[in-house]
C-alpha cells in the first residue's frame, strides 16, 4: 500500500533533497548565519570579556561614525582594494591567457604561477620584508640602474600601502589565473576558428571574442577578489604589527577591528566595525551583480 501521508512524488523528492543538505545547511546556519546575527546583537552592547556590560543601542555605531581612525582605516582599505583588485585581475588574466597557449613546459608555468597562492602567506611576507628592507634586494637591484635609495618600502608611509598591494596582488594572482584558466578552456575552439576566418588578429580576437565570453568569470573573479581585498589583515599585521604604522598607512578595517577586540577588549565596538564591513562588502557585491549580471555559466 502506498503511504498517502508522503503525498505526491514531488514532495517526497523535495524532502529527500532537503535531507541531503540538512547537515551542510546546519553547519552553514550555525557557523555563518548565526554569528552574523550574534555580531549585530553584540554590537548594540558595551560588551566585555565575560559578556554584556550594558546596552548602548546604536551608540557604538554613532561613536564609529565620528572616529577619525576608523575612517582612515576605511580609506586605506578602499585604496588598497581598488589597486589590488586591478593588479591581481590583470595579472591573473594575463597569466591565464599565457598558460592557456600551447607552450613548452606549460605545466611547469601553471604550477609556478599558482605557487604563491598555496604558499604560506606568512612565509611570503617574511621574505618580502627582507627584499623590501632598506638594504634589501630591491634597493640593490635599483642601484644597478643608478637609482640609489635606501627607502624601507614597507616602513615609509608613502610606499607602505602600495608595497602591500604589490605583495598581495602578486600572491593572489595565481588563484585568479586558475579561475580564468577554467573559463578560458570552456570557450569552444570554433569561436576562435570563426574569428580567424574573418581575419581577426590576436589582439582583436582577445578583446572582441575572449574577453566578452569571459563575462561570467569576470563577475565571479571580481566578487572573490574584492571580498578578499576588503578583508585584508594578515600581511598588514605581519609587516607593521597591530598599530598599522607608519603614520596609519597600513591600518586596514580588519586590523582596526582586531585592535579594538583583542587589545582593548571592546567587543561591542569591534562587532560594530565588523557589521559595517559586512554591510559594505554586501553592498559592493550587490552592485557588482547589477553591473555584471548573473553568472550564467559556472
Amino acid at each position: 500500500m502506498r503511504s498517502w501521508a508522503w503525498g505526491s512524488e514531488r514532495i517526497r523528492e523535495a524532502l529527500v533533497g532537503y535531507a541531503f543538505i540538512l547537515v551542510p545547511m546546519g553547519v552553514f546556519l550555525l557557523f555563518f548565519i548565526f554569528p552574523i546575527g550574534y555580531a549585530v546583537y553584540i554590537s548594540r552592547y558595551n560588551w566585555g570579556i565575560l559578556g554584556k556590560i550594558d546596552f548602548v543601542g546604536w551608540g557604538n555605531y554613532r561613536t564609529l561614525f565620528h572616529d577619525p581612525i576608523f575612517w582612515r582605516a576605511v580609506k586605506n582599505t578602499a585604496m588598497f582594494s581598488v589597486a589590488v583588485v586591478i593588479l591581481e585581475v590583470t595579472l591573473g588574466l594575463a597569466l591565464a591567457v599565457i598558460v592557456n597557449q600551447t607552450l613548452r613546459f606549460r605545466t611547469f608555468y601553471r604550477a609556478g604561477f599558482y605557487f604563491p597562492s598555496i604558499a604560506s602567506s606568512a612565509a611570503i611576507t617574511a621574505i618580502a620584508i627582507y627584499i623590501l628592507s632598506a638594504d634589501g634586494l630591491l634597493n640593490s637591484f635599483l642601484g644597478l640602474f643608478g637609482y640609489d635609495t635606501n627607502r624601507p618600502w614597507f616602513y615609509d608611509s608613502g610606499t607602505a600601502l602600495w608595497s602591500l598591494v604589490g605583495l598581495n596582488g602578486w600572491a593572489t594572482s595565481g588563484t585568479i589565473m586558475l579561475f580564468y584558466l577554467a573559463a578560458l578552456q570552456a570557450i569552444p575552439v570554433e569561436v576562435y576558428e570563426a574569428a580567424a576566418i574573418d581575419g581577426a588578429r590576436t589582439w582583436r580576437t582577445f578583446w572582441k571574442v575572449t574577453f566578452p565570453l569571459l563575462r561570467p568569470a569576470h563577475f565571479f573573479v571580481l566578487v572573490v577578489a574584492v571580498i578578499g581585498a576588503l578583508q585584508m589583515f594578515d600581511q598588514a599585521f605581519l609587516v607593521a604589527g597591530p598599530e598599522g604604522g607608519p603614520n596609519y598607512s597600513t591600518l586596514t578595517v580588519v586590523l582596526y577591528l582586531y585592535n579594538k577586540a583583542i587589545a582593548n577588549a571592546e567587543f561591542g565596538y569591534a562587532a560594530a566595525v565588523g557589521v559595517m564591513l559586512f554591510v559594505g562588502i554586501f553592498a559592493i557585491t550587490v552592485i557588482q551583480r547589477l553591473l555584471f549580471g548573473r553568472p550564467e555559466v559556472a
Partner: protein
Amino acid sequence: MSRRTIVASLAVLGLALAIAALAGLGTGTGTAAPHAKQLSGTVSLSGWQSSPVEDNLLRQVIKAFQKKYPKIKVSYTALGGDYDATMLAKFAARKPPDVFYVNGHVFPVWVPQGVLASLSPYIKKYHFSTKPFFPRLLSGFKYKGQTYGFPKDWGPLAMFVNTDMLKKAGAKTPTTWATLRSTAQKLKSSNAVPGGTPICLSDDWARVFAFVYQNGYKGGILRSNSIMSSKVKAAANYYVGLWKSGLAKRPQDIGASWNGDGFMKGKCAIAFEGPWLVPPLKDVPSIHYKIAALPKGKTRGNLAFTVSYSIAKDSKHKALAWTLLTYLTGRAGMKKWTSLGLSLPSRKDVKPVSRLSTFTKAAGYSHVWQGGPKFNDVITAANNELSAVAEGKESVNSMLSKIRSAAKSAGQ
C-alpha cells in the same frame, strides 16, 4: 549509594573541612598557604615563552616546586602565537588557566573586566609579605586598593654601547644628554659606524618616555592633561633632534627590524634596549659591548616593563594557585627563574646575575609602562604620529596635540 554511606561521606568531608580550617588559622610562614603541604591536586599554569632556553628554565622552576610540594601537580602550557587573544578566549569560555602571565600594559584592560582574582585576601590571611617586591613594580598590579598580581620579573632600558666603535671614535661612554650628542657627533665624523648610524633610535614612545622622565616630568604615561607640558615637549624635541641632526636613524632605515637588531648587526654604536638584548648578543661574539645607564637629563628616568603572575577569578583551585604563585614569585623560585640572566628579579632580596647589575640600579627611578584601559589606542596614535614626525611630515607640537586628543578620547 545508600543513605548510610552518604551520611558517612558527609561526616568525613565535614571533618576534613574542619581540619583544613584549623590549619588555616595556624601561624603564617610568610611564603605560602600554611596548609600547602597537605594540599593536593592539579594546578594549571600558562604564559608565553620567547625562547626554548626560557621554556626549559621555567620547567626547571616547576620541577623544584613539585619537589617541595609533591602532592601538587603543575600542568604547564606555553601559549604560542597571540597570547592576549588566546587568553581572552579562555576567559570568555570560563576556562582560564589557574595561574598565568599578565603583561603590565594589558593589566588595566583585564582587571576592570573581572577576570583576575584579588590576591589581597590571601596576602592578609597568610600574612604574606609583599615588602621584598620593588614597590613601583608591585603598584603596576594594583587596582582600587587591591593587589591582582605579583611581578614575576621586569626589565628597564639601558644604553648598549659598542666599545670598539667608541674606541675608534676616541669617545667615552656618554652619561648625559649633552655627552650623548657629542659622542654621537664624534662617531659620525670619524665614520666609526660604516654603513650605519651612531644611534639606533626607534620611532617608539616606549623609548621616548624614558627621556621624558629624564627631563624631570612627574606625571603618568601619555596622559591628556600633561602630554603638552614643556617637559614632554623638550624631551620629544631632544629625541627627534637626534634624527634630524643625522646622529640617529630608525632601525627600519638601516635595514634592521628593531634597535637591538641594528646593534647586533653592527649598524649602530648605541642602542637603548632592555635585558632581553643580552641573551641574543651572546650569539654575536664579534660585537664587543658594555651596558651603561641611560644618559641623565635633568634627572634620571627610565621605564619598567613588567609581567605578573596572577590568578584567574574563575580558577577552581585557588588555594593551589596561591601556593604556586607564591613559590614562583617567592625568593627561591625567583632566584632560579632569574639565574640564567634572562630577566631581572622583581624582588630586592634576590640578586641579579652580575652582568645585569646596571639594570637593577634603575629600579628606584623606573616607571611602569602602563596606562588606562584604552592605553593601546593611545600608543597606536602616539607611535603613528611619531613616525610621521620621523619622516618629517609633522611637527612635534602637532604630534603632541594629536596624542592629547587620542588620550582624551581614551579617557586617560
